[in-house]
């Protein structure tokens, strides 16, 4: 019941936006992912319960969309685009560099639980490659120095326990 404890107002707001409860499943899954850290079995059960859906339906959506993580991830998920256009602009080398710096393989999570590194298909920012999205926020025109700066900033944010994760902000805005 983590989701309902943590985001009761947001859930109410989201449900009010749709004529059918079922339609609220995707935003609720985002919230559940924040509450539970990933779309765990419990998270999906809870979403299903709120929306009167079969939990298998929620699981199926979690599998279909790549932004739902069915395994635990770090506080910040760094998703580097290495599709063709980005690769031509050095995305692959960038991923290798990031992997080395964070000392994790692709799809790995740092021991402090802060960072998960992933590669993804096109994020529609080919002209600004290498680029990545960090918890849905784009970081563009990257190089090694900018990556170091990004990591330092994120570490500092985490240390200061600053603000809500961006997805919750976005969903809250949507739910108003």
């Amino acid at each position: 019941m983590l989701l309902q404890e943590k985001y009761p107002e947001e859930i109410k707001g989201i449900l009010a936006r749709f004529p059918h409860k079922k339609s609220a499943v995707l935003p609720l899954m985002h919230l559940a992912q924040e509450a539970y850290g990933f779309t765990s079995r419990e998270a999906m059960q809870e979403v299903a319960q709120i929306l009167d859906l079969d939990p298998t339906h929620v699981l199926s959506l979690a599998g279909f969309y790549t932004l739902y993580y069915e395994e635990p991830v770090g506080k910040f998920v760094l998703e580097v685009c290495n599709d063709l256009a980005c690769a031509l602009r050095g995305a692959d080398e960038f991923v290798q560099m990031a992997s080395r710096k964070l000392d994790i393989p692709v799809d790995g999570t740092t021991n402090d639980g802060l960072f998960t590194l992933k590669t993804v298909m096109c994020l529609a920012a080919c002209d600004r490659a290498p680029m990545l999205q960090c918890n849905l926020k784009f970081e563009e025109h990257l190089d090694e120095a900018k990556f170091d700066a990004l990591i330092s900033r994120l570490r500092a944010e985490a240390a200061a326990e600053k603000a809500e994760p961006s997805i919750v902000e976005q969903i809250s805005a949507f739910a108003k």
Partner: protein
Amino acid sequence: MSDQVNLTIDGVELSVPNGTLVVDAAKMIENPIPVFCYHPKMAPVGMCRMCLVEIGLPVRDRNSGEPVLNDDGTPQVSFRGLQTACTVQVSEGMVVRTTTEVVTKAREDVIEFLLTSHPLDCPICDKGGECPLQNLTMEHGKGTSRMDYSLKMKLDKHVPLGELIYLDRERCIQCGRCVRFQEEIVDDPVIRFHNRGRSLEIVTMSDPGFDSYWSGNTTDICPVGALTTADFRFGARPWELTPVATLSPHCPSGANMTFSTRREAKSGGRSVIKRIMPRQNEPVNEIWISDRDRFVHHFADAPDRLKKPLMRKNGQLVEVEWGEALDAVAGKLQQSGTAVAGLSGDRVSNEDMFLFQKLFRQGLKSHNIDLANRRLAGGDVVAKVGISQGSNLLNLGQGDAIVVIASDLHEEVPVWWLRVKQAAQRGAELVILNLRPTRLDECSRNVIHYQPGQAIATLRQLVNDAKVAAADADNSPIKAAADVIMQANNVVAFYGAEGLTYAETDAVARLLANLLLIKNEEAYAGRPNNGLIPVWPHNNTQGAWDMGIHPALEPGYKPAAKPGMRANEVYAAAQTGALKALFLLAADPIGDGLMAGRGQLDFLVVQELFLTETAAQADVVLPAQSWAEREGTFTSGERRVQRYYPAIQPVGEARPDWQILAQIGERVGLEKPAFAASLVFRDLAKAVPQYKGMDYRALARVEKQWPDVGGDDLYYGGNAYENRVGLGMQWPAAAESGAVDHFEVADVDSELPGKVVVVRTAALFTPGTLINHTELLQARMAQPTLIIQAADAAKLQLAQGEKVMVEVAGRGVETAVRLSEDTPEGVALLRGVPYQAGLTELKVMG
């Protein structure tokens, strides 16, 4: 617009109903277009692309709208590339080409593509031999692949979707038939796709996994070996299997099924039942069976079956020869004069029941004959206003109404639940009258939950409201329901026994009959797709009524001149000594809590499959053959008489029930036993006027059914689907041939026995002698549960999950308390416990 559309497929001109899909039109002229994802019972999705064909439409002049003709006067046709035949509806003048080079090439490519992810492990695959993918690859595949074998996906091959169904991820071709079946047909969407592309797999999150009473059907419609049942998995190769037609031995729907048998060395050369699959009978069960029908067959081959007659000697039951046992039974029954009684179970065949009552009525001159456990009354009412001949629940839809009272069809007769639900989806209005919410409620706009003890009063109100015009009455939900019924074109009414006594079910049947007769000359009763359907507790309760297993009704509903004792009177008389000898045919009244013990009986004979509690106390135990070993007929709740056939050799020295009864009959002065069940049926068809014109040959008649799912082309795989040996025959209700009077309804006042009343509710997997022999289902058995709302629980000081002993049918049963606000106030539902009639007081034992 005309209802028929003319088109041409591969040069063959045909006319089909408007709205027909191209793929079905082709099947109608036996020019099947290969498919994987398409299934005629489900909406098309066009996912697999196997059915690509060239479709051309006539060219019309833009200005005049007239067809443009070629020089030779034929209409000009414009082809627009390949289209999926499963998603395109026919239209006037359409030309379909399925044999051109471009179509052939497309099929080759689709097969090649599907096989890139397929392991080709046919030699160890359960589907190999009846596999649409295998067959269509042989027919339409190129035989080679451009795919590098080392690039094949390696995926899990033994993924349990629960303990009943296994998934082989490599074999799955992602057609989605199983997912669509669960969602579209049976509304249990507990399996779904997960991930995408080559990572796609079928998953379930229900607890237990794949939690549906219909899960086995997905293995039938799976066009590859991806889904298999734990029961049949690695059990046999399809080409070794012999199909033998049979019927559900549990269900009053009369579901048609097929045994697949094989002779096995490890069973000493005996034929063994390897699996059960549905057999097509569109008016009965279409091509679906519940998991109970599919998996509960192991009792037939169980090691604890009775194999030889047993007789009590010096206090012990010892094995004897048949002659000795039969002589003893005949002798003892005759010595007891008229102080004898015969009670039958409602699972045995019509032939058995007919000879059973004949033994008593003609052989022993006694009318003390009854069902051992009579739960639902109204057989005599059904004989007059039962659902008419030629009815098919598939025909009900928009403008029709279906009434369900005192029954949870989903748990009692899943096939009827499915067909009623589908009728509602087609637009039929459901009127549901129950004590508590059931699953059908969600399909109905007219749900009435009556108070405990108010079933009759509520139904009486409904019938009275139906008699008055809409404006003259208040706008209560009952009046609204009555209006729905009176405005319907067709009305079918189901009635059950939940929370009702036997006498109350009789009143229910009569009131419903009066509802069906209300319009007098234009009564619903007597017309096709109208009438009463009793939700009988067992597969052949209807047959028991027809055969005169009733103290006051002889075969064919002929009133007995001098009615005998009813079952409860027999049980009482056994205790007092008024009854000397009792014959129990496939019944276990001591185990069911109906009879305290053998009491003062001089002689107790039990004819059974197993050494039941009652049999253990008997003087003679006669081993009977199960339904898998012999032939016979059952009559369904829709009064359809159907045959079943012998599939395996008899166990031990067991004999068919009818034969044993005939051999006893001969010893008490009746004629010599018939040689075959068919001859017994011939005799009973003479004695039962309703069965006139029926014989084994007529019952075995088949006609072509649509959709065409059987056949040698293996379009849908396997040799089990096709119905080759009988669709059965319905017998006519009296209302079909003449007017039927309205029924007198006795006042049945039921007083509430306590502040909180107990209602025993049905569960499909309720423990019982037959189902307990299927190891596979044990984890799904309905556990004894007491379901009660929180407020009542608080008053009784019961807590969620607490174990309490409650009295059920005179015995203590340990149940777990479950709190549910769906339960009405003042009611405790008991699930997963033996049958108990009516409303009883909640007795929590210390």
